């Protein structure tokens, strides 16, 4: 621009020449400086699931297993100005009986307010991904997930709450002599009518709908310079209410979920240790006399070890636990209140797996899980949870490609 102004000063003079230059400049800015920054990327995952009992992503307990987990995403980003970015991603996801839909995963405008060598901050407006733990904001991309099935603290049942929010995000990155710090704070509305969550909390698909109120999520992250150690604390305050339907025995109740999540990862040569711990304070109140208030605390954590056998092949073991209610870990009390078995209140999942990346844009994963408990099963794929088996095994395969 500066060079152009000098050029105009020297050679141009008349307004016609000037306007012509401005038009050319505008065109050029778009064609060269901005359009040049356009990037298109995407991913596709195809899974295969076979279980001894209970269903995961389709009829996995049938003899032939299930292919009903397909995820396809395409995104684009562009930087029209030096401090302004635009980005959007569309995702199609078929997941058993739970979902078969295309959605706008994110669509945002990113304004960098300050950009200095050692720190930068800004805001993103629109539909923004939720920063929770190490893996949530890219949870549908196999390459960035720790395994085919996410650890239970990433709650497939409450997935709709985790995806993103319509609102804004403040972000800050800081580099210091001991490493990099990052802060993300989101405020906005989550997806309305999360069916799986409604069934799991209200016991069935009720006539009314769960609706989101303004909710807040934040994450403070640290990473050392080389990237071998990283740590994060995430917090979320998710607020929802129940909008009763016709002839509903439930009244306009409130739901509040307070998440606190600690994440730690350490690389040591060929070995990587990853652990995350989540506590949720649930508060389900004011649903009327037929549905007493309850405020259980849920807990979930896992420890995963990855070992690199070669630059392309990793072996993985993981132990993953979830408790719906820390005051009733084995679910006995829950079983007396409902028709569900006690083991629907927890899940203990031992996993071994292999992760093979023959090329950097291809990934093939295989996993075997031995699971005690069914708290993580989806109601859509297992309509009669009271008939679910306590001990079940899962074999999963997944082929993924990205560009």
């Amino acid at each position: 621009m500066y060079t152009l102004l000098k050029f105009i000063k020297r050679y141009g003079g008349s307004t016609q020449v000037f306007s012509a230059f401005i038009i050319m400049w505008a065109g050029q800015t778009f064609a060269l400086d901005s359009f040049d920054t356009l990037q298109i990327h995407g991913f596709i995952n195809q899974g295969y699931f076979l279980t001894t009992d209970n269903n995961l992503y389709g009829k996995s307990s049938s003899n032939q297993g299930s292919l009903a987990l397909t995820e396809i995403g395409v995104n684009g980003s562009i930087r029209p100005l030096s401090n302004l970015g635009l980005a959007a991603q569309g995702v199609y996801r078929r997941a058993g009986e739970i979902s078969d839909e295309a959605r706008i995963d994110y669509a945002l405008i990113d304004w960098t307010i300050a950009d200095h060598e050692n720190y930068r901050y800004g805001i993103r407006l629109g539909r923004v991904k939720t920063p929770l733990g190490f893996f949530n904001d890219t949870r549908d991309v196999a390459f960035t997930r720790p395994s085919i099935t996410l650890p239970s603290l990433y709650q497939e049942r409450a997935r709709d709450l985790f995806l993103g929010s319509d609102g804004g995000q403040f972000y800050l990155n800081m580099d210091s002599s001991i490493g990099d710090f990052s802060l993300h704070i989101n405020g906005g509305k989550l997806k309305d009518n999360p069916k799986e969550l409604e069934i799991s909390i209200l016991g069935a698909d009720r006539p009314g709908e769960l609706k989101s109120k303004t909710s807040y999520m934040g994450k403070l992250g640290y990473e050392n310079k080389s990237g071998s150690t990283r740590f994060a604390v995430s917090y979320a305050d998710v607020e929802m209410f129940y909008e009763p339907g016709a002839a509903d025995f439930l009244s306009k109740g409130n739901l509040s979920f307070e998440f606190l999540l600690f994440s730690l990862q350490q690389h040591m040569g060929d070995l990587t240790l990853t652990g995350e711990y989540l506590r949720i304070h649930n508060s389900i109140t004011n649903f009327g006399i037929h549905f007493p208030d309850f405020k259980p605390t849920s807990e979930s954590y896992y420890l995963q070890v990855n070992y690199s056998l070669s630059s392309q092949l990793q072996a993985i073991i993981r132990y993953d636990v979830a408790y719906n209610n820390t005051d009733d870990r084995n679910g006995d009390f829950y079983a007396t209140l409902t028709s569900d078995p006690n083991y629907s209140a927890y899940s203990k999942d031992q996993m071994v797996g292999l992760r093979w990346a023959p090329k950097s844009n291809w990934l093939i994963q295989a996993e075997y899980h031995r699971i005690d408990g069914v708290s993580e099963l989806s109601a859509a794929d297992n309509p009669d949870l009271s008939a679910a088996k306590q001990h079940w095994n899962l074999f999963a395969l997944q082929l993924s490609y990205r560009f």
Partner: protein
Amino acid sequence: MRRFHYLILFVFSFTSPASQAVEIIANPSIKIESLTISRARNIFSMRARNWANDTPIKVYVLDDNNDLHKQFSKQILGVFPYKLRRVWDRNTFSGTGQAPTTVKSEAEMIKVISSTKGAIGYANKGNVNVHVIKIH
């Protein structure tokens, strides 16, 4: 005194440019001779977006498994390649930034950098007709 000599030797073997076979190269339009290491990290992490003259920074890299990429990442930036990959993937798939362009070979890297305004990448030492940027 002998111990001191060893110390010197030790420090030297880790910091000597001679032990580094890879160097940062850039398009001649970038009128700088050197970068601080933190600025270089920010550039290759896609956090720094513009050169001082407001030209967009265009970052080129080789495949994650390429030996030259691994050398560059560890020796020049002092960062494990998986950290760069993590940052780029988060950028790309959560809408929070962009990723560098991956080129197929060192020859292509040199060619595309010499012909693209604002471009930066890396190559083996000793290539002629490239604009080398030192780390200070």
